[in-house]
């Protein structure tokens, strides 16, 4: 029923938006036209605004009976032809893991907004805690890859949500937006660009696949799932199948299947499927990963961070630079896949790496694994709170002495 789908309608300009609102608007700008969710603090503003805004642009909103239902409906709608997302927090995210693993196996582009709160258990709903970073990657059964973005401002929640939808469309894997209880409720300036500028940034959902010569593919030529092209030496990711078009396979299984979508129980088949869905991400790490570096060229000590701690670290590094200390900042805009190569290059430049995180240290393990030349890596954990700029400044000072 594409006649009821309309364009993004927010007039360009400056807005004061809560983080959660910015995430919704970013999703709508990216072409998200389906949302299924379940109330859980602190992400409630996302379904609330979605229920108001989606019908205005012809999208569909449904409040499901639980998080499992929400993400399953999102998978259904995604192969039903709409860009779809859900959002949740801590315990709800755990419930979604089963379906995320399945979505990765059948290569459905879905986006999950994860407004993190403290844990374990029910935790505290009003405090930030980046407690689900590893769960997002390793929470589900089986081996699969996710793409995860970690915005740090309302503006980034708008921009990176568009990026997240683009990544999901391109790489056909579950994509996560890491927000947290604080970032979700921060009120900040968001600049909405004009529609034609937005359109250039958005990768639309394709209904027809084309071959190298630009001819539409016949059904027989179309592969529903990723296949390794030996000749070209790259992974061929075809367009997402749509249940209402020719391309939908006769049988789309939940079990292990071949790239032609034939379910079977051969070891070879499992090897091909697992390799393909993982390597299509890992082999393209450089294309997917987004990082940002500040003053790292001549730095002796570098802070590696993502999400809100990046803002704290930026302040601390500015303070340290003002005092003549050679400090640098390395920011992971995408947390998953991990920017192994870039971190390795960083470790060759600096003498010491500090990793401030709002958890007991989840990404620091990956930083340690990426470092090859024995550069010292030190975690700076903060539980359910933001680091103080002074605190990180002192850590930099100590590291340089």
């Amino acid at each position: 029923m594409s006649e009821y789908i309309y364009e993004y309608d927010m007039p360009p300009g400056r807005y004061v938006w809560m983080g959660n609102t910015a995430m919704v608007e970013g999703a709508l700008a990216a072409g998200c036209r389906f949302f299924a969710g379940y109330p859980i603090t602190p992400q409630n503003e996302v379904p609330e605004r979605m229920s108001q805004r989606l019908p205005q642009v012809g999208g569909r909103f449904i409040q499901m009976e639980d998080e499992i239902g929400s993400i399953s409906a999102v998978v259904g709608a995604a192969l039903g032809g709409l860009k779809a997302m859900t959002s949740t927090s801590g315990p709800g995210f755990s419930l979604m893991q089963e379906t995320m693993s399945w979505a990765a196996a059948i290569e459905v582009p879905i986006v999950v907004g994860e407004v993190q709160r403290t844990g374990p258990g029910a935790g505290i709903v009003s405090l930030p805690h980046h407690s689900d970073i590893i769960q997002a990657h390793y929470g589900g059964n089986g081996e699969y890859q996710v793409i995860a973005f970690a915005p740090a401002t309302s503006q980034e929640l708008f921009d990176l949500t568009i990026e997240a939808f683009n990544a999901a469309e391109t790489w056909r894997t579950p994509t996560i937006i890491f927000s947290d209880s604080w970032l979700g409720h921060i009120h900040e300036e968001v600049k909405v660009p004009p529609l034609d500028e937005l359109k250039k940034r958005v990768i639309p959902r394709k209904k027809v696949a084309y071959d190298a010569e630009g001819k539409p593919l016949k059904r027989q030529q179309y592969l529903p799932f990723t296949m390794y092209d030996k000749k070209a030496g790259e992974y061929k990711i075809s367009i997402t199948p749509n249940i209402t078009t020719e391309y939908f396979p006769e049988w789309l299984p939940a079990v292990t299947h071949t790239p032609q979508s034939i379910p079977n129980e051969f070891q070879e088949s499992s090897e091909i499927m697992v390799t393909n869905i993982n390597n299509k991400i890992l082999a393209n790490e450089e294309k997917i990963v987004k990082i940002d570096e500040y003053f790292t060229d001549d730095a002796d000590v570098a802070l590696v961070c993502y999400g809100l701690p990046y803002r704290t670290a930026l302040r601390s590094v500015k303070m340290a630079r003002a005092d003549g200390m050679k400090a640098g900042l390395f920011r992971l805009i995408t947390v998953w896949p991990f920017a192994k190569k870039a971190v390795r290059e960083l470790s060759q430049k600096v003498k010491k790496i500090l990793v401030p995180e709002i958890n007991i240290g989840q990404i620091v393990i990956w930083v340690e694994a990426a470092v090859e030349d024995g550069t010292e890596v030190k975690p700076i954990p903060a539980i359910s709170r933001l680091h103080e700029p002074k605190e990180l400044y002192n850590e930099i000072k100590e590291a340089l002495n």
Partner: protein
Amino acid sequence: MSLPPYTPERPRHPYEDMPYTGRKFGQAFHLFCRGCGYGAIGQLLCRVFKEERLDEKKHPFIVGVGCYSIIPLILPGRIWMTLHGRTLPVATGIKLANPDVTPICLAGDGDNLSIGTNHFVHACRRNIGIVLIMLHNNIYGMTGGQAAPTTPHGMNATTAPYGFLETEFDAVSLAISAGATYVARWTTAHPRQFMKSVKKAIKWKGFAFIDMVSQCPTYFGRKNDMAQPVDVFNWIKGNSIPINKAEGLSPEELQGKFIVGEFKESPREELSEKYIELIKRAREKKK
């Protein structure tokens, strides 16, 4: 490496070479146990598809996990196999995204009354245009004969070797009280009535639920002193009471019986249609 060949060529006409025993991947075999009722159900669904000339793009089969997951081997059209118990939310997503599509969900009693009961009652309540055929064989067949929420009280299963202590679920009453608009129950002993019901359900505006009782000779039969497949079939047939005859009977007399028939037909507005109205309203209001 030896993978089975993929034969993507489609028949010229979707119904041209669709024998009742199936056409998926050109197979001439099936994987059902001897005497299983699911083969018959698959065949009946093929007949419905052929007789009604259904458009396969409009009626995808959404299949859960259980013994019945091999029925699609003989089914026409598009099959989407989901996770255990998640057929209904997936179908909800499809239906809302494409209101002109009516997914046909195949779910087992374990899918629907155990792991996915939540989705089931809420789909009934929403009255979303989905056909749900619940295949009900009183046991978990695929995993080896464990007790199901539909195992009758006192019957044996591999996880109830001394007899099942709990009381079974009545899916029909559950669906009626949850608000499903079309509710029917048939058994493998009522194939024609079942076909008629499915035809009606596919055209039904709203949530249509059919509870289809079937025999499991391999586990349910063997565990409960019904050695031959036909014994289980006869047990089901003997315990079936048409709804008009059941009306005068007391609850004690109805204990352990399968009441068959069409229980409810009361149309109500369908969700995805209402949602299109909502879109129009929301856009009107914005102006």
